[in-house]
């Protein structure tokens, strides 16, 4: 049966408006074009079954699910892609897959803004990336190396004599927050406040409470933006505030949405990744020693750990009807690339469960791909690398505190916490 074509509006960054299509959720809201045999309820990523052992759940998806299926859940219904090839296809074809409405954070409809550049499709998104790329490209981030090393050691200094720590609070969360503050040009005395905001915003499932926290963060960021307007510096906020692509300065809403997005994107993801890695290291002493004994291979070690411990998903919305692997999807359908599962695709990474620090290098999806490929990827790699180097140098032997049952908490970013360690 023919249906009226759905027109997905291009987001106009100068005139932000709420996305017109609702998020469908639940079995009562499955569109009629979805074949019954492709409907699943995987429970990803909030169910107890998933959080029992996420990094066994992801590789198993390739053994138990069709490559493309329609996932029905309490928060959202969407097609899910678990093949490496399919996720790259979705991420690289903006003509089919729009990233408008890809960020679930609630905003006031009367004072709407877009998270930039993530919610803007190519080619318009490029002008935003060009503003910050010079601060976060692989060469540029090298200038942070000594600073990150110093910060890592300060955090280790604070706990090493105690013989134990809660890794999340004592290392994984403050490290990216400190780096973020430096990168943005914000004072380090805001560290605890930012840590609190991260937890309140990103570990909160209640949209009403989220709005309150977002207002508080937004007010602070607006003050910082105003201050950088008066006193320019080398930091990212100042760079965004004073940018004028093609001679045209960004509007206030563009600046705000850009600065806010960097905050959301760069903290939670890093600390979840660190927690995953340290949880694994704590339980695998022989692998720890393998890493310590092969310091020249640290980059490959980081890349492989990022492959097996990816933490996020990538949402898109179809702009036009599309058939993929024989599955007919329609304009307006939501699509989620299950990036951590794609990194266990046995067709690309043979024997995918094995953590192998000598795999040939291939594109991984930890940082998504395509034009919206994570702009902080090189900084994140550097933070993980230096964190590993310094921690393993000073605390080579550690384990999960005996008697503690480490749990994964339901979250859109996959990581265990709390993570009490002893040495």
């Amino acid at each position, binding site marked *: 049966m023919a249906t009226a074509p759905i027109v997905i509006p291009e987001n106009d960054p100068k005139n932000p408006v709420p996305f017109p299509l609702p998020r469908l959720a639940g079995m009562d809201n499955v569109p009629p074009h979805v074949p019954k045999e492709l409907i699943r309820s995987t429970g990803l990523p909030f169910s107890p079954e998933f959080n029992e052992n996420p990094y066994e759940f992801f590789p198993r998806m390739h053994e138990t699910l069709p490559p493309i299926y329609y996932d029905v859940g309490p928060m959202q219904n969407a097609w899910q892609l678990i093949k490496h090839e399919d996720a790259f296809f979705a991420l690289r074809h903006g003509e089919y897959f729009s990233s408008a409405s890809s960020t679930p954070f609630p905003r006031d409809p009367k004072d709407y803004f877009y998270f930039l550049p993530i919610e803007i499709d190519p080619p318009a998104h490029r002008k935003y990336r060009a503003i910050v790329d010079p601060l976060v*490209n692989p060469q540029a981030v090298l200038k942070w190396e000594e600073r990150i090393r110093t910060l890592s050691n300060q955090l280790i200094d604070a706990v090493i004599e105690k013989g134990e720590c809660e890794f999340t609070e004592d290392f994984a969360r403050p490290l990216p927050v400190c780096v973020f503050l430096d990168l943005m040009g914000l004072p380090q005395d805001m560290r605890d406040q930012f840590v609190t905001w991260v937890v309140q915003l990103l570990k909160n499932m209640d949209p009403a409470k989220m709005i309150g926290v977002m207002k508080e963060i937004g007010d602070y960021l607006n003050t910082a933006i105003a201050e950088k307007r008066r006193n320019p510096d080398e930091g990212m906020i100042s760079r965004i505030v004073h940018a004028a692509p093609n001679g045209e300065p960004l509007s206030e809403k563009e600046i705000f949405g850009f600065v806010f997005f960097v905050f959301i994107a760069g903290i939670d993801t890093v600390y979840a990744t660190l927690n995953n890695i340290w949880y694994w290291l704590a339980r695998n002493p022989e692998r720890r020693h393998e890493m310590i004994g092969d310091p020249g291979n640290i980059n490959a070690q980081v890349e492989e750990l990022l492959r097996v411990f990816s933490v996020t998903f990538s949402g898109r919305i179809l702009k036009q009807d599309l058939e993929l692997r024989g599955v007919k999807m329609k304009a307006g359908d939501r699509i989620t690339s299950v990036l951590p599962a794609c990194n266990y695709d046995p067709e690309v990474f043979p024997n995918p469960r094995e953590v192998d620090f000598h795999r*040939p290098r291939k594109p*991984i999806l930890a940082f998504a791909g395509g034009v919206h490929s994570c702009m902080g990827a090189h900084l994140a790699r550097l933070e993980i690398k230096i964190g590993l180097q310094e921690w393993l140098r000073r605390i080579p032997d550690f384990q999960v505190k005996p008697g503690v049952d480490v749990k994964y908490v339901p979250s859109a970013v996959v990581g265990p916490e709390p993570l009490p360690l002893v040495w």
Partner: protein
Amino acid sequence: MPLVIYVEADGARHEVDVPLGENVMRGAVNNGVEGIVGECGGGLACATCHCYVDAAWADKVGGPSSDDERDMLESAAAEVRPTSRLSCQIAITPELDGLVVELPERQY
């Protein structure tokens, strides 16, 4: 500034002055040369900045600069040839003034 000449698969030529210290990938991306994507930003993580160094320049530019580049080239979408490089790994130096690189038909 050294000049880099990008020749697209359809023959279109772009002559671009690229600052010293930059690389061949960024010279393209920052100047609207569409045959290079460079989606990961230059970190040997995507294989979308594949180029063929012109035969006359191949010796001066040299082959892949690391095992990672060699591995990553195998993920390139277009045919890999003896002068294939990932352009993010070719740093712009005074010696490369006039460099000619050909771009493949597709990057993914």
